[in-house]
């Protein structure tokens, strides 16, 4: 289309210009032709009239000469001199034939007609053209045009007959007829007509015109009696006309046909028109060819451009002759190469993780998306355990190198997964196309086995563990994001439960779509007061009395009933919605604690803070204002933070903790032992309490290792001046062991399950009364 347009445009411009120029030329030629025809006709008529006059004169002289010669003929003279009428008559007839004169007359010197071939029976009359005779008498001879009795005009020549004295005049008349007109017409190139004008009457005496035009001429002359010269229309034709008097009432009408004069110009114009049309056609063809010659390379370039547009950089731009377009093609080809290499680089950057050289998250998602449609498979998510601590302890450079080493390791796995990718940070993903649950599981086991080999970096042996989340498609989802989230949850679950790996299907009981709508629901839940706080009592193992309680969030879901925090808190943390929940929670807790305090139940209530809460700059001010608002002693509020929550931004977290501590609020390290934090690190924090993770506490009596860890932790914590709380004390034997081990506080089902706030006061009263007797019993 572009080509065609270009062609058309070139053709139109070229041909249009040519047509313009040619029209100008044709117009000018036509105009000048018209002028030339007019002037040429006038000139021709003028020249023709001169020629005509000269011809007539010449003719006259010739006739005179001939007549003179004839009159010199001895026998002629003799016959006339002898006055023998019969002889004279026959001799003039004979000599008239000789010279071609239609009329012969012999006139005596005194003007009496002696013989007349036209009217042989009337001799003796006077010669009718006295003027001719007079001028002949003075000039020796005379001639002129006269109309004779028969109605025809004659060219009459009067010459003397001398013997040797003038004995007579002989008049010879040459008829002016159509033949005469035709001959003169042929020589002059004009139409020659002889007319007689008498008043308004016009009679045509002779003409070179044909029959129809004769009548038309007479009509025209009658219509324009006075016009001596000018353009006269005879029928359809235009004639440049000149009238000249011949004698008295005789006129010769000389005419030049304009059409005839135009004829050569017409043919010139026709030729010119043919040349112009031919030129235009040739030009059109030429310009189309030219346009095609220009257009074809352009077309080729356009095709190349379209290929490039479609992302096909493989085909080189065709080599063209090195004219301007060829140069363009060359530059175009260079451009193609540059774009190809640049795109390759961009693609690499876009789809490759620069650190490990593995495909990145985008690539993984795209590939996963592509593969989801066909068949089944598994997505495996790997998160390196304790990577944040390694990064923190050994520096980012080492962390990066560790990731590179892990990347290498993952790149050499057998069986090779369809795709190995680093999603971000310490998280890797694997796509196992065609794998079923069993194959995915064996892959996970193989992967964990591979990772269990220590990695040596700069002479340091690093033990690397990972948690895996497995999501199977299409069972766990048909969408890449859903699958990855499922795998992520499974991975988090595996990490939390130290399972090594977990399946998304076993981790997420509820359908995936429910998780998706969770944020919106949570927001509504907050507005509708569907979140409720349950309190789990904490028992002072020394004083044997309830010293506090931990506030635990529950969601009184209108459809699904009471949801434990594990079902929505990780999600709230992931999405950041926790930052909306925590202020509400803190307010409830402070308010409740103050109420209990007022009811003379002075217990310390703990609330959990997530990593996001710790980093929230408004946290401290909020806590301060809550305490002031409810008039609660800061020491009655305890904030629990997991060690991992401190790892994202340790400095800021530490600053906030320091401020909270300065307020007088108690701080506690939650889930101690599940993360990588050492006591050495905890020591630097302004915390009052250490909560040993339930993983160590539950069943501590059965595991000597756990017992050793708990015992040493208690000892060390006490050494550091920290209060120790054991979570997950489920049995009375646990409680006894803990009590013996010197643990300060215990919490768990062994004491009480979490309960609504209203129930706590009653439970505490019951417990005190029960255990007072039990204590008493001890």
């Amino acid at each position, binding site marked *: 289309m572009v080509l065609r347009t270009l062609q058309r445009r070139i053709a139109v411009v070229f041909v249009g210009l040519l047509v313009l120029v040619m029209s100008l030329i044709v117009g000018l030629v036509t105009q000048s032709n018209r002028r030339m025809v007019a002037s040429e006709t006038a000139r021709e008529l003028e020249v023709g009239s001169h020629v005509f006059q000269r011809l007539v004169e010449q003719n006259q002289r010739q006739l005179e000469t001939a007549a003179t010669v004839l009159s*010199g003929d*001895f026998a002629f*003279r*003799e016959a006339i*001199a*002898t006055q023998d009428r019969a002889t004279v008559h026959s001799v003039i007839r004979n000599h008239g034939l000789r010279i071609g004169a239609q009329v012969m007359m012999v006139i005596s010197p005194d003007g009496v007609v002696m013989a007349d071939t036209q009217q042989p029976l009337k001799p003796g009359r006077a010669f009718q053209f006295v003027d001719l005779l007079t001028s002949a008498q003075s000039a020796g001879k005379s001639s002129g045009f006269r109309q004779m009795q028969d109605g025809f005009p004659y060219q009459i020549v009067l010459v003397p007959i*001398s*013997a*040797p*004295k003038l*004995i007579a005049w002989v008049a010879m008349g040459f008829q002016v007829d159509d033949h005469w007109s035709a001959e003169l017409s042929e020589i002059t190139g004009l139409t020659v007509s002889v007319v007689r004008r008498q008043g308004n009457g016009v009679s045509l005496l002779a003409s070179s015109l044909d029959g129809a035009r004769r009548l038309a001429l007479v009509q025209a002359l009658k219509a324009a009696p006075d016009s001596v010269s000018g353009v006269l229309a005879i029928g359809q034709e235009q004639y440049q006309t000149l009238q000249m008097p011949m004698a008295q009432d005789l006129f010769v009408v000389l005419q030049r046909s304009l059409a005839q004069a135009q004829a050569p110009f017409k043919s010139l114009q026709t030729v010119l028109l043919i040349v112009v049309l031919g030129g235009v056609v040739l030009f059109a063809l030429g310009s189309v060819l030219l346009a095609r010659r220009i257009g074809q390379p352009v077309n080729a370039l356009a095709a190349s451009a379209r290929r490039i547009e479609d992302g096909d950089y493989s085909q080189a731009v065709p080599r063209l002759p090195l004219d301007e377009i060829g140069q363009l093609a060359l530059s175009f080809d260079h451009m193609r190469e540059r774009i190809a290499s640049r795109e390759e680089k961009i693609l690499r950057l876009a789809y490759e993780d620069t650190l490990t050289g593995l495909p990145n998250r985008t690539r993984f998602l795209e590939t996963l998306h592509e593969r989801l449609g066909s068949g089944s498979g598994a997505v495996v998510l790997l998160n390196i355990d304790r990577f944040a601590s390694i990064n923190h302890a050994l520096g980012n450079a080492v962390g990066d190198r560790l990731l590179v080493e892990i990347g290498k390791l993952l790149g050499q796995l057998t069986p090779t997964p369809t795709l190995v990718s680093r999603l971000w940070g310490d998280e890797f993903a694997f796509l196992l196309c065609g794998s079923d649950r069993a194959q995915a599981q064996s892959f996970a086991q193989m992967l964990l086995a591979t990772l269990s080999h220590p990695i040596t970096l700069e002479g340091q042996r690093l033990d690397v563990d990972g948690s895996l989340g497995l999501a199977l498609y299409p069972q766990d989802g048909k969408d890449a994001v859903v699958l990855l989230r499922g795998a992520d949850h499974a991975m988090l679950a595996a990490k939390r439960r130290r399972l090594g790996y977990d399946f998304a299907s076993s981790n997420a009981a509820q359908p995936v779509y429910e998780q998706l709508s969770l944020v919106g629901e949570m927001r509504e839940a907050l507005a509708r007061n569907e979140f409720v706080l349950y309190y789990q009592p904490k028992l002072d193992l020394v004083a044997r009395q309830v010293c506090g309680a931990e506030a635990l969030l529950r969601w009184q879901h209108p459809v699904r009933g009471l949801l434990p925090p594990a079902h929505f808190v990780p999600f709230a943390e992931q999405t950041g919605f926790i930052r909306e929940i925590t202020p509400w929670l803190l307010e409830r807790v402070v308010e409740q604690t103050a109420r209990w305090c007022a009811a003379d139940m002075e217990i310390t209530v703990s609330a959990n803070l997530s990593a996001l809460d710790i980093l929230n700059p408004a946290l401290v001010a909020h806590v301060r204002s809550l305490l002031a608002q409810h008039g609660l002693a800061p020491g009655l509020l305890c904030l629990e933070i997991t060690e991992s929550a401190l790892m994202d931004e340790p400095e800021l977290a530490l600053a906030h903790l320091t401020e909270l501590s300065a307020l007088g609020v108690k701080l506690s390290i939650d889930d101690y032992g599940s993360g990588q934090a050492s006591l050495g690190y905890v020591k630097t924090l302004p915390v009052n309490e250490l909560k040993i993770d339930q993983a160590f506490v539950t069943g501590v009596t059965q595991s000597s290792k756990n017992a050793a860890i708990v015992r040493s932790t208690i000892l060390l914590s006490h050494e550091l001046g920290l209060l120790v709380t054991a979570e997950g004390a489920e049995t009375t034997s646990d409680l006894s062991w803990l009590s013996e081990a010197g643990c300060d506080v215990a919490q768990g089902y062994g004491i009480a399950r979490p309960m609504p706030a209203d129930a706590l006061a009653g439970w505490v009263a019951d417990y005190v009364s029960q255990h007072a007797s039990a204590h008493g019993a001890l």
Partner: protein
Amino acid sequence: MRCFPLARWLVLLPLVGASAFGATVDASVRTSAGNPLENAVVVLEPLSVAPAKRRRTVTIEQKDREFLPYVTVVETGTLVEFPNRDPFKHHIYSFSPAKVFEIKLYADKPVLPVLFDKAGEVALGCNIHDWMEAYVLVVNTPHFGKTGVNGNTTIRDLVPGRYHLRVWHPQQQTEAPQREIEIVAGTAPQHLNLQAKVLPRTPKPKPPLDADKY
């Protein structure tokens, strides 16, 4: 040819004789403008006595493609010779009623002289030289004279008596009617002042001779 000097003598003799006893007329012819008129012919015809005729021979030459002389006056019955002095032929003719004749192409001298036996004016022409022109006036009297350049002529040996006087000229428009005059005897010449109305002579163009004189 031998007779030619003799003829001349014969012509001269009576003139000389007549002068001894006749009267003489001096005629002077002038044009209307008063100029002397050459080649005018003055003819005196006696009313009473018819003089005895004498057969005479006169010569009109063709020389240099001209007639010589231009005007000749002869008495009726005169023979005129037309000798050709040109190296080429001539073809002389006359269609005049007084004498119609034609001498077809000839050289030297025609075989016979032409007899002018009828009074009148004879115009001579040459058929092959249109400009050649001569006039012969044939009269019935021996008394006549032809004017020279000065317009004068003398007629001698006139017997006193009454005469018809006639003046003629080739270019004369109309001839004046004859009148009678009285010639008286005496020694002194009688003067006649005559007038003639003539048209100027317009000689026909004469082409120059060719290199080889033809």
